[in-house]
């Protein structure tokens, strides 16, 4: 057990936080009181309601400052560990050449009705992201980018036709948890279509995913905001060519994540 910490305003341990929210109540003394109570329920005590404003006849918006009486122990934080070593583009290609003897086939798409391709293009296209070139730039990879709004069935068919080793799927729209629903449907469809462990590696990504969700969603790996092509290439090699020498896992360094 380490030392539990709380929020820091201007003195260690003061617990000061800023919160804003809307309540479905007409502006007035009662709404202000409810806002204070609401903040109390979030563990903020005392809670100063420093701003309140009517949002139309039946809602009110609040800004609250106060001491959050909650603590976390940094040691109990489960840091998403990177389970694979980061390789250079050259190393990735070398490993594919040795381990597979043919180019790795990567299929990419935005599925469902999502049309946000900038994220998947950042991972796949030569232009890349954060100064790293995308997977298309690898000699030992064949990348097929199906673009946006691809139906899951079409994706399954393409995976089959192209003999895909890995399928990379992007989901950016999260309203009504669309990204979760779609990912679950994706996994189901691939499980049904590919039996006996012949299912290609399923990798999903997008700014509102948490890496820890993979198992829950039934896919092999999940990538969140700030992913770079190198992260993905290294992971693919790690997951598909497991003959590699053991390298100890390390927590993802902050700088590499954003």
């Amino acid at each position, binding site marked *: 057990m380490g030392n539990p910490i709380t929020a820091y305003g201007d003195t260690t341990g003061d617990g000061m936080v800023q919160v*804003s*929210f*809307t309540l479905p109540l007409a502006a007035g003394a009662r709404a202000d009181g409810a806002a204070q109570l609401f903040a109390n329920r979030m563990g903020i005590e005392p809670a100063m309601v420093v701003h309140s*404003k009517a*949002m*139309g006849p039946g*809602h009110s*918006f609040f800004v609250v400052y106060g001491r959050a009486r909650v603590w976390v122990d940094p040691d109990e934080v489960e840091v998403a560990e990177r389970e694979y070593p980061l390789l250079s583009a050259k190393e990735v290609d070398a490993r594919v050449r040795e381990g597979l003897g043919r180019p790795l086939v990567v299929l990419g798409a935005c599925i*469902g*009705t*999502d*049309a946000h*391709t*900038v994220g998947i293009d950042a991972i796949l296209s030569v232009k890349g992201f954060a100064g790293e070139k995308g997977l298309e730039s690898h000699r030992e990879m064949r990348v097929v980018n199906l*673009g*946006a*709004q691809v139906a899951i069935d079409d994706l399954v068919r393409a995976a089959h036709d192209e003999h895909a080793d890995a399928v990379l799927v992007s989901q950016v*729209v*999260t*309203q*009504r948890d*669309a990204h979760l629903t779609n990912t679950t449907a994706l996994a189901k469809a691939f499980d049904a279509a590919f039996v006996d462990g012949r299912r290609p590696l399923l990798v999903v990504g997008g700014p509102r995913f948490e890496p820890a969700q993979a198992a829950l969603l039934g896919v092999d790996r999940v990538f969140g905001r700030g992913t770079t092509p190198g992260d993905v290439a290294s992971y693919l090699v790690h997951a598909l060519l497991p003959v590699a020498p053991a390298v100890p896992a390390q927590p993802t360094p902050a700088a590499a994540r954003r």
Partner: protein
Amino acid sequence: MTGLLDLDPAVVARARALARSAAQPVVELAQAHTTVSLERAVLRLAGCEGADAGHPAGDVPWVNRLVDVVADQVGLGHGVALPLGDAIARGEAPDLPTLAALALEGRLKLRLPDEAAAEAEARHVMEELVGAGIARIDAQRHERDRRRTELGDPPAPWIYLIVATGDIREDVVQAQAAAREGADVVAVIRSTGQSLLDHVPEGETYDGYAGTYATQANFRLMRRALDDVGAELGRYVRLTNYASGLCMPEIAVLAGLERLDMMLNDCMYGIVFRDINPIRTFVDQRFSRQIHARAGIVINTGEDNYLTTADAVDAAHTVLVSQLLNERFAHEAGLEDWQLGLGHAFEISPSVPDSFRLELAHALLVREVFPDAPLKYMPPTKHMTGNVFGGYLHDGFFNLAALLTGQSIILVGMMTEGIVTPFLSDRDLALENVRYVRATAGRLGEDLRPAPDGFIATRARAVLDESVQLLERIERDGLLRAIGEGTFGVTRRPADGGRGLDGVVAKDERYWNPASDHLEGI
């Protein structure tokens, strides 16, 4: 406002002339083809409402059924008006929906009328029906004028707010709230995916993702809601929706019938951002714009989108080039300058030195090249992050740029742009931001005098020059090739690729379409 940049009118004129000749082959292509959606739009104009509710996968609009039947039995090269008009003239059914139902049951045999008399009868029937539809659109246009005169128009710039709950009933509540908070224009974002449907959904809908389906019933509901709140507020509140997509012509018709005031309608957006086939799009956009022209609707073009996939500095000239093309296609379709809500955006990364002045240069350039167009200015999106405080400030500087450069319609940026579709409070805070900037610094434009050969003027001229160069290339190589090479939004779209190509049909000599005749004054 015009004249701050000291642009050379000859260069601007040359850019326009190039756009005109670059567009010409595409206009001819559009004139030579029809599409399933265009034909369905004709039927919607002819009063064909409703859907076949019997299908297990969901309702299929009668217009889709009819066009499919025509295609099946006699082909689409001559349009649907002649065979269907003929069937009605022959007394097969009193109206189009009934005809469709009959056909579905296999009890209808369509033909192309052979003799002149039969053809004249068929034409007469369809002219009457379509004429009634156009009369309804005209009536709605007059109704708009009447209400605007009665209630008065707000001063420029107009505040444009979006609602996007997915449920038309929630949308109505939020739209009325937005109007009360100061929105002059309310846009109902469509559900993701609708633009790739090759039909227009039917009825009121409650289950869109990140937006609400554009349906005639939803249009009507929202129109009524805004009329009500407009009466309450004493100003006419405008309603906007989206045409671009596989059903551009049909949605344009519905917008005219239900008195929408503005429509997102871009000559290339569907191609670049929805991978819709270029020919399909060019045919569809032309007809849809003819409808908008008639309906007195202001179109909004989508150049802002380019700057989400391309870099806003590098690709600044592609915005101007696209605007000139949009202008040309719009004029050709009969739209007037006051109807051209040309789009552009404040999307330069704030890490670029002098980015605000670059934005001013771009915004002034557009303003001065299109002095009579109601320009629509889009807020930052790409460089909005999870830092909502920084985002709120960035939006404030967007508002300042909009006011300093005399933009006409400003879409209000939300501090949560990088995170979620807007909260109720985001919209209120965003409007407070606009009001703050407008009240405190709204008239600062009077004091802005870019140095004659200073940073701003030089940048604007450089963008104009690059635009002329790009237009020269497009005029030489063809617009379709340019699109295929990824000129717009760094996205390559070959002329023979994309969705909806199978719905494009070359017109044969007997092609006839009473709506186009009407709209083109033939």
